């Protein structure tokens, strides 16, 4: 009535409302159009943070297509890196870091991508640039991994020391540093770093290294205990069987030691199977099932590093196979790389859900 009092008829009111709606829609569309990239990006970034990479990817692809920018290029590159689509990720990250060369975090991401592609030489160059701009522990750790892969042990050690100094609870860095120290004969010092780790009965690498430290300390009881703990986790761990067998013989328990070395020989014979699998894969590199068997066999004898390398090869040949990521999660966990383990686990779950 009030409206009517202003001289509006119902038809006029409807038309008015419709008119207002149209204006609102137009304004809304205009507003929406202006807000969409930010909102989309916000949403995508949230998904990336939650590890929902497969859901983030189409949003970022949309952004990349409709609103090309260095940031959107970077985000899509990051997402593809997380989804182990490495070649595409590398190209996107190259474009992004060329456009904005001062973004040290981007340089680090590009370096991570190159590291995963096996191009440690290129990764180091990127990390050098990133560290020159911001000396962060993450960058140092990544550079240490590159240097280790290239056999640049002393330089890797320098980076790992910096990481552990900054973050004493960085388990993977502590283990890698301890491994370098043990291998280069500085076993007592390795012990001081391993001592700082919180006890973790599931981290066989830490347990194995600690056993070698304890032998150096003359604490054969604890060394034996640690070797046995490793064998609880991986019964065919050749390193632990070898170490335990030799320890027992040196301790005067020759019969027991020889029995353990017999087990070692059996486990080592699995190496033959491994070589056969490798042999097969040399001719059929894309057989994921065989590649996974090889990775499993390597893991069974405690060779985590080569196991992960084979899983990486498996991932390259079958990036959408959730079994690959399941295996990766287990091995990452055994090497103390819990964040990586979680990422692999999430991706496996995601792929399993997506797969009918």
């Amino acid at each position, binding site marked *: 009535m009030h409206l009517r009092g202003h001289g509006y008829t119902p038809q006029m009111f409807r038309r008015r409302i419709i008119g207002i709606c149209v204006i609102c829609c137009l304004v809304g569309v205009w507003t929406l159009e202006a807000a969409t990239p930010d909102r989309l990006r916000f949403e995508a970034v949230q998904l990336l943070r939650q590890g929902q990479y497969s859901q983030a990817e189409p949003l970022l692809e949309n952004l990349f297509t409709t609103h090309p920018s260095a940031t959107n290029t970077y985000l899509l590159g990051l997402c593809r890196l997380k989804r182990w689509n490495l070649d595409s990720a590398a190209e996107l990250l190259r474009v992004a870091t060329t456009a904005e060369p001062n973004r040290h975090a981007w340089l680090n991401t590009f370096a991570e991508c190159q590291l995963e592609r*096996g*191009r*440690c*030489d*290129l990764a180091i160059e990127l990390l050098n640039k990133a560290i020159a701009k911001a000396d962060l522990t993450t960058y140092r750790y990544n550079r240490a991994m590159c240097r280790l892969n*290239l*056999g*640049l*042990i*002393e*330089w890797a050690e320098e980076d790992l020391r910096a990481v552990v100094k900054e973050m004493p609870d960085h388990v993977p860095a502590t283990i890698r540093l301890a491994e370098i120290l*043990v*291998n*280069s*004969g*500085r*076993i007592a010092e390795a012990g001081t770093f391993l001592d700082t780790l919180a006890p973790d009965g599931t981290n066989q690498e830490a347990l194995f290294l600690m056993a*070698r430290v304890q032998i150096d300390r003359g604490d054969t009881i604890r060394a034996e205990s640690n070797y046995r703990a490793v064998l609880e986790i991986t019964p065919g761990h*050749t*390193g*632990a*069987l*070898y*170490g335990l067998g*030799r320890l027992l*013989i*040196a301790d005067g328990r020759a019969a027991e030691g*020889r029995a353990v*070395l017999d087990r*070692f*020989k059996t486990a*080592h014979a699995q*190496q033959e199977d491994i*070589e056969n699998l*490798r*042999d097969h894969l*040399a001719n059929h*590199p894309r057989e994921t099932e065989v590649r996974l068997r090889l990775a499993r066999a390597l893991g069974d004898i405690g*060779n985590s590093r080569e196991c992960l390398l084979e899983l990486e090869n498996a991932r390259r040949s079958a990036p959408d196979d959730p079994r690959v990521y399941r295996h990766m999660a287990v091995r990452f966990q055994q090497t103390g790389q819990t964040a990586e383990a979680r990422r692999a686990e999430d991706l496996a779950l995601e792929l399993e859900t997506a797969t009918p």
Partner: protein
Amino acid sequence: MRGLTIVFFLATVIGCAGSEAPPEGANAGSGLFKDVTEGAGIDFIHDHGGIGEKWVPETMSAGACVLDFDNDGLLDIYLVQSGRLFDEQAPGLVNRLYRNLGDWHFEDVTSSSGTGDGAYGFGAIAADYDGDGDTDLYLTNYGPNTLLRNEGDGTFSKVTESAGVGNPLWSTSAAFFDADGDGDLDLYVVNYVDFSLDNHRVCGDFEREIFSYCHPDCYPTQSDTFYRNLGDGTFEDATLDAGLEEDTGKGLGVVVADFDNDSDPDIYVANDSTPNFLWVNDGTGHFTEQGLVSGAAFNDAGRTQAGMGVDAGDINNDGWLDVIVTHLSMEDNALYLGGPNGFSYGTGSAGLYTASLPVLGFGANFFDADLDGDLDLFVANGDVVDTIDLLRPGATHAQPDQLFLNDGSGRFALLDPEAAGGFSQPRVSRASITADLDNDGRMDLLVTTNNGPARLFRNRGQSNHWIGLELRGPQNNPKAIGARISLVVGDRTIFQEVRTGSGYLASSDSRIVFGLGPEAPSNQSITIRWPSGRTTRLHDLEINRYHLIDAPPEQVLFPPQE
């Protein structure tokens, strides 16, 4: 640009490897060696004969040895050629003998001596197997091996078949020694893998069409061969009888020495990607394999490594022989420290871990390069894969050789390659031989190159003192191979053993040189334990010269009745 990056990386790798703080006095060896190849007239160039098929034997050769074939008191040089693997041998591609004329000049006497063997060659070992007073040559090949008997007049005759040592497998290294204590020299021949055109494979990155030689895992193992000397110039295959039948190894290097200090020779074999062998002698020439139990078969983590070259010596002067085994890059060279309870893994504590990772080692030699009284270490490096720079960024086919100086406690420091004497030039090195080619007491170096020139390095060491010994054994072992010589100076005891055939495809100078350091010792004593078990004691020998020592006459315990 890419090439520059690779070069930069190599420099980086080596720079890093050498950046450990050297022990005190290590730099005293700067400029120790000088490459004298060109002026010496050594013009040998190894040709692996590769035609792009990536046949594995191409990348493993070449060997060499030294011998005084004409008994003129100067060591001559024998270099092994490969050539065409499955085709008719190209003319001129034969092994070469260079006669030492003195004053660092050599003359090619291949034709006149009849030593130009044309097989696809690998190693060369020198020893007087028939006890006739001149040094003979045993050559390992892909295919039947060759025995060249020295006729004593500057010529050699091929007697392989009549001597019965023509092992037809792919042999690599070999060693002469008296396994059973009967006074003559037996022969251990290391065999590698069963490779043929039928089972040949190509490896690499097929997507990128980068091809490479395949890993030995692709080929079956072959048992080594043991020949017992029958004392009449012939041998019998006694592999089984001596307990040496074992087909799990892919052998490349060998060293024979008394590892368990029980006065008989044992055999250590460096196997490629299979457990190393330690054949322990029971004193009668029967052997049992004890690599695993003794701790000398695997690395510290129980893994096999790619054993290439090997040598043994007491690097920490504790009275027990230690063993160095060279490996692939990204695997450390293994140093097994000997002791009364077997071996412990000493690579890290000896300072060899970091420097050995970026390079692929072949020849390895313990010798006192600077005559300071401890054993230093030379390692000849070079990758097996000629396309490695494409397959693994940062890696290179040619690599610098390495000289490590011992600080006296068994800890080594890598000498700057340039200062050490021209080792900074990356090459694809294989065999390395130590030999005192000018009889000045300083061990010189001969290094072969796969598909490239052999190189001769003269030791120009400082004025440290030394004592040299050349042993003259009984007739059937005239160089007294297997003798152990201990030198006592002050409170230190140093020992070395006489051997022939050790390392990788090689045989070095069998004389013994003890470095004495800068101060002439006021007194020293030497004990020789002869292969027969008898001993000779010598006191205060004149220093800075060689001494020829005769074995004591054989003791006749029960003379025949009239």
